[in-house]
C-alpha cells in the first residue's frame, strides 16, 4: 500500500511503518510515515483494523436489541453511545424521558466522562514517558467501575440506558458512596496537577507541539476537548442544552495557551484535567437534585410496537466530543439505516495535514493528545 501513496524518488527519505501494534497507538492504528531522519514529511493514517460493521448490525437488530452493540462503538465511554442511540430513537418515536431517568443518565455519563478522561490523561503521560500517573488515574477509574457495576452490573460495556429511560434506579446508599468518593477525588486532581500537569519536564515536552488553530479545528471538524483546547468554547451540553444539563451549573474549560500557544498538546491535556473537575461539580449537583423526582419513575411511556417511520438525528457531547446518531426507520422492527458520527474519526483525519514538519516522537504526543479510541474510528 505504501507504494500507492509515496513514490520514493529521493534517496534521503525513508518510509516507515508504525503500527498496527505500536503500544502508543491506542488500539489498532497504523501510520505510514515518510520521514527525513527524525522529521516527518508526511504521516498517513491507515485505519479500519477494528471495523465491525456496527451500522450493518443495526439494520439486522430491533431498536432495543441494538443497545448492547452501541457499547462497542466506544468502549472507553460506552454510556455516551448508549445515550446517543436512545436519544435518536426517542426523537424518532416521540418518546418523553422522565426527569429522574434524565438525571440518572447525566450521573452515569459524567462518571463515565471522568473514567474516560482518566484513561486519556494517564495514557498520554505514559506515551511520552511518564509512567507514574497511569496507575494513579487507573486507581480512580477502578472506583468508578465499581460504581457502574453496582448501578448496572457492568464495568465496561454498560448497556444501561434504554429507549425511554434507563434500566435500573440507583441502589440504596449509592449516591452517598459517590459523594464520598468525590470528596476524595477533588483533592487528588489538585495533587495530580502537581504530579504531572505542571511538571516542568512534562510542560516542556508538550508546550508548542503540534499547534492547531481554531480555524483549522473547525475546518477539520474537530470536536469536544480537542476543539475547546484550540480556544473555542463549544460544548453541546450548553449549546443544545439536551437532557437536564440546563438545570446544572458548570463551566466550559478552554485552552488558553498558558504554557505555550493556544491549541498545543499541553492545552489538549489541560482541558481534560479541567473537565474532570467540572464533571465532579455536575455530579454533586445532579446527585442532590435527583431526589426531587419520584423513585422508580425511570422509563417513559413507550409505544406498544417500535415500528417507526421517518428519520431523526440526535447528538450528545461524549468524552470525545460531538457524537451524532442518524437513524432512519421504514416501518419495520429494525432501523433501515443507522449512522454514528464520532469524534475520533474526524480527529484522525487531521493528522495527515498536521504531521509535516513534526518530529517522529511528537507524532506520538499528537495522537495521544487527541485521545482517539480505535473502535470509535472504525466502528
Amino acid at each position, binding site marked *: 500500500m505504501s507504494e500507492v501513496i509515496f513514490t520514493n524518488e529521493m534517496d534521503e527519505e525513508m518510509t516507515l511503518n508504525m503500527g498496527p501494534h505500536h503500544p502508543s497507538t491506542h488500539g489498532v492504528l497504523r501510520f505510514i510515515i515518510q520521514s527525513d531522519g527524525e522529521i516527518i514529511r508526511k504521516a498517513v493514517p491507515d485505519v*479500519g483494523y477494528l*471495523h465491525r460493521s456496527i451500522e*450493518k448490525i443495526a439494520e439486522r437488530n430491533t431498536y432495543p436489541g441494538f443497545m448492547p452493540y452501541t457499547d462497542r462503538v466506544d468502549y472507553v465511554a460506552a454510556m455516551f453511545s448508549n445515550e446517543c442511540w436512545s436519544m435518536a430513537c426517542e*426523537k424518532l418515536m416521540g418518546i418523553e424521558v422522565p426527569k429522574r431517568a434524565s438525571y440518572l443518565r447525566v450521573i452515569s455519563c459524567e462518571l463515565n466522562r471522568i473514567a474516560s478522561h482518566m484513561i486519556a490523561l494517564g495514557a498520554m503521560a505514559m506515551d511520552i514517558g511518564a509512567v507514574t500517573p497511569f496507575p494513579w488515574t487507573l486507581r480512580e477509574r477502578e472506583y468508578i467501575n465499581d460504581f457502574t457495576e453496582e448501578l448496572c452490573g457492568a464495568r465496561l460495556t454498560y448497556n444501561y440506558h434504554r429507549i425511554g429511560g434507563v434500566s435500573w434506579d440507583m441502589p440504596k446508599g449509592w449516591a452517598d458512596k459517590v459523594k464520598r468518593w468525590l470528596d476524595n477525588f477533588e483533592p487528588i486532581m489538585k495533587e495530580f496537577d502537581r504530579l504531572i500537569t505542571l511538571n516542568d519536564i512534562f510542560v516542556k515536552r508538550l508546550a508548542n507541539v503540534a499547534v492547531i488553530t481554531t480555524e483549522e479545528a473547525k*475546518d477539520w*471538524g474537530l470536536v469536544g476537548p480537542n476543539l475547546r483546547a484550540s480556544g473555542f468554547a463549544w460544548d453541546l451540553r450548553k449549546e443544545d442544552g439536551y437532557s437536564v444539563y440546563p438545570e446544572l451549573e458548570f463551566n466550559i474549560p478552554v485552552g488558553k495557551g498558558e504554557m505555550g500557544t493556544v491549541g498545543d498538546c499541553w492545552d489538549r491535556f489541560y482541558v481534560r484535567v479541567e473537565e474532570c473537575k467540572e464533571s465532579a461539580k455536575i455530579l454533586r449537583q445532579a446527585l442532590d437534585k435527583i431526589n426531587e423526582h419520584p423513585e422508580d419513575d425511570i422509563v417513559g411511556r413507550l409505544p406498544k410496537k417500535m415500528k417507526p417511520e421517518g*428519520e431523526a438525528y440526535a447528538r450528545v457531547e461524549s468524552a470525545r466530543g460531538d457524537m451524532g446518531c*442518524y437513524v432512519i426507520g421504514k416501518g419495520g422492527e429494525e432501523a433501515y439505516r443507522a449512522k454514528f458520527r464520532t469524534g475520533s474519526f474526524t480527529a484522525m483525519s*487531521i493528522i495527515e495535514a498536521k504531521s509535516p514538519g513534526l518530529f517522529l516522537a511528537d507524532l506520538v504526543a499528537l495522537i495521544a493528545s487527541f485521545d482517539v479510541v480505535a473502535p470509535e474510528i472504525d*466502528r
Partner: protein
Amino acid sequence: MTPEAIFKRLQEKFGEETVFDFHEVSDKNRDAWFQVAPFEIEPVCEYLKTEPDLAFDYLESMTGVDYPDDKKIVVVDHIYSYGHKHRVILKAFLDREDPAMPTLVNVWSTANWHERECFDLLGVLFEGHPDLRRILLPDDWEGHPLRKDYEEKEEYHGIPTQRPNPIELYKIGVPGKDKKAS
C-alpha cells in the same frame, strides 16, 4: 435562521431547479431537510459557508443511504453554523446505477474522510476527491456492504466471515422455549 428561511434564500439565489423539495418538521421528519441537485451541490455549499449571515462552518456528518426500490442512493449532509447556531440538512439524490457527485473537500476539509467512508461502504464516487480510497475495509474487498443487495462472501483470504450459531451447534436449550433448559 430557520431551515425554511435558508431554503428560500437558496432558492432565490440558485433557482428552483437546484434547490427544491422542502420538508418541514413533522412526525416523520424530525428535522427539516431539502434536496439539492447533486451536480450543483458544491457552489451551494460554498455559498452556505462563505455568506456571513449563513456561515455554515461545520460539516457534522455525511451519510449515504441506499434505496433500491427508488433506484436511488441518497447522500445526506448535516451542517451547522457555530456562529449562528443554526442547522440544516441537505440531501442529494443520486442514480443508483452510477452514483456520483462532486466532492466537498474544497469547502470543508473534514469532508475528506466522510466521503471516503461513503465511497467505501456505499460506492458513491466523489468526483475531484484528492484521495478516494477505501478507508474502513481492506483495499481488495469486493462490494459495498451498506448497499441493501450486498451479499456477504463466505470467506476473505481463507478467513471465514460467518460462524455457526452456537445455540444450534452445541444444542443449548433456550429458557422459555425449551423445557429441559433451566
